């Protein structure tokens, strides 16, 4: 009996080819959309995280406890030598760099602007930020000149300065609070799509920054890049505990940029919501198709019931038809999903310049395909198709043969 039900379902699916093709295309487009949307979300999340961490933040940072809230220049990292030595031997750490961070003022003959002055160690900084790649004019700390300053294009515009022009930077010293002023020459101008980075930051060598605020060889921040970004979301990693000692705190980007974590959670929820909507469309498409097919063959179902097919046998025929339709649709959807996603992963989707919760997209978003997308979603579509088929199957099973065959005797 199973054999004949399968045979009936398979052949009935191809009985009205046009309808089957339309229905299967609709369902497969739903599946394609699910696969593509998942791939896009992964691509978007990865790009967001990469943009946020690679531009300047790093994947993790170590600070003195309280520094992030108070931004006091005196709150430098404790036991710096021990921390630095340990980081150099840490197997999970690929690169790290030290920074000095202080608020200050930059003045040109034409204008003045508040800035975050950042002292960097150029050889290691280039592994943690994209400043060197973003230079549009001049160079990135090439010569050994302690008076080089690199500023953003917007800040250069505000100050009305260009390469080689002189600017004066004023900061407060860490312990005494006395003002410290130094003259610098603009040696490089960078451009980032992020407005804040363009207009509010100035980079000098770390030794000069330490000298200006009188903190000796101390630093405020160590930015870290792991061997795998997955470590950033692993709260059980011993790293966090090891480097959260001596009054310091080691934090992942997820804690440093909680708003981005929220965005990522939101994208996951939106994925579920869109998924539910798409599945809803698919389910109603299936129910509609099955009912159209069913009403077209009502008399035939009546005949099958009349000659002795039990109600459950009738339901089985309809469910098998739903299954056959799902198989055809899944085949189409997987192929279509692969092609669409692969194409857009190759070309990329241009969201550059668009800011999302403080992160400005700086690269193309490329959808990321995973094996799971081509297993999980087809299984879901198959299961939902069968679930959707239960309603028409129940309808057929409960149908009185005489009603179906009203036109017979």
């Amino acid at each position, binding site marked *: *009996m199973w*054999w*004949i039900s399968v*045979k*009936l379902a398979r*052949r*009935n699916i191809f*009985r009205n080819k046009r309808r089957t093709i339309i229905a299967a295309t609709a369902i497969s487009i739903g599946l394609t959309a699910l696969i593509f949307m998942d791939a896009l979300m992964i691509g978007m999340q990865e790009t967001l995280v990469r943009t946020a961490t690679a531009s300047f933040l790093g994947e993790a940072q170590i600070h003195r406890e309280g520094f992030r809230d108070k931004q006091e220049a005196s709150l430098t990292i404790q036991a710096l030598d021990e921390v630095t030595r340990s980081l150099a031997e840490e197997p999970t750490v690929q690169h790290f760099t030290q920074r000095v961070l202080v608020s200050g003022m930059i003045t040109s003959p034409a204008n003045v602007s508040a800035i975050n002055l950042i002292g960097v160690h150029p050889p290691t900084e280039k592994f943690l930020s994209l400043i060197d790649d973003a230079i549009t004019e001049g160079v990135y700390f090439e010569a050994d000149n302690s008076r080089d300053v690199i500023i953003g294009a917007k800040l250069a515009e505000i100050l009305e300065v260009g390469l080689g022009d002189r600017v004066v930077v004023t900061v407060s010293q860490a312990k005494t609070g006395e003002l410290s002023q130094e003259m610098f020459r603009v040696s490089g101008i960078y451009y980032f799509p992020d407005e804040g980075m363009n207009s509010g930051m100035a980079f000098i060598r770390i030794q000069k920054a330490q000298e200006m605020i009188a903190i000796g060889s101390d630093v405020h921040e160590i930015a870290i890049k792991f061997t795998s970004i997955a470590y950033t979301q692993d709260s059980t990693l011993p790293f966090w505990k090891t480097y959260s000692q001596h009054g310091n705190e080691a934090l992942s980007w997820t804690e440093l940029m909680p708003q981005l974590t929220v965005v990522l959670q939101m994208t996951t929820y939106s994925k579920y919501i869109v998924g539910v909507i798409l599945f809803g469309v698919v389910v109603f498409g299936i129910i509609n198709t099955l009912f159209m097919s069913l009403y077209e063959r009502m*008399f*035939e179902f009546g*005949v*099958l*019931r*009349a*000659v*002795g*097919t*039990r*109600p459950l*046998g009738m339901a089985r025929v309809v469910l098998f038809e739903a299954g056959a339709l799902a198989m055809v649709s899944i085949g189409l959807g997987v192929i279509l999903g692969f092609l669409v996603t692969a194409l857009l992963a190759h070309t990329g989707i241009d969201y550059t310049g668009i800011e999302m919760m403080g992160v400005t997209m700086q690269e193309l978003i490329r959808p990321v395909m995973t094996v799971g997308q081509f297993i999980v979603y087809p299984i879901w579509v198959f299961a939902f198709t069968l679930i959707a088929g239960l309603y028409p199957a129940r309808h057929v099973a409960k149908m*009185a*043969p*005489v009603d179906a*065959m009203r036109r*017979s*005797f």
Partner: protein
Amino acid sequence: MEQTQKTDVIVTEDVTKVYAANGIPVNALNGIDLTIESGEFTALVGPSGSGKTTFLNIISGLDSPTEGKVWLAGKALSEMSGNELSDFRRDNIGFIFQAYNLIPVLTVEENVEYIMLLAGVPKAERHERVLTMLETVGLKGVANRTPTQLSGGQQQRVAIARAMVSEPTIILADEPTANLDSKTGADLLEMMRHLNSETGMTFIFSTHDPMVMERARRLITLRDGRIDPDETR
């Protein structure tokens, strides 16, 4: 009626069927008492709306009477569950429809063997019985064709083969010649009469066709839901 006679295939007792047409009750059958014995070749005749369809639906268990009882092969249909009725129809009733109503996606062989599949007849036996039956109805060599590749007369022969292959107690035929030309209709009627004589299977026709009426050994006329008259020849 407590028990049917051994040779009584169908017994109806005071069968009444009332339909609600737009809320107005319509009596399709008015207290039909009828006995049909095994081996009969009976035609149920009457004008449209006389209750032939309703009566066939009720005696085949496809519909239930508003009042009264039906016994088929000694069993009261009203006492059976849905599954029992399905199994009972499968084992005891063969249907022949006016429009053949073969399953278009199945081949001739699959159409004919469908009922045996439901009954769990082994594959080899099914195949043998289908071929024998197709030969009996004059359709040797068409087992692998689909119904759409056959003429109307051939399709009705397949329908007859499907109805008879499981050797049911009774064959119910609804206007079996209505869609056929005179010659094909006459040939099929002769064939069914021959099968009736050979196998002793009971045939009940619902018909307007004079050819069927001529060949029937019993003519039951229905008028306004009542038998008027019941003639045996």
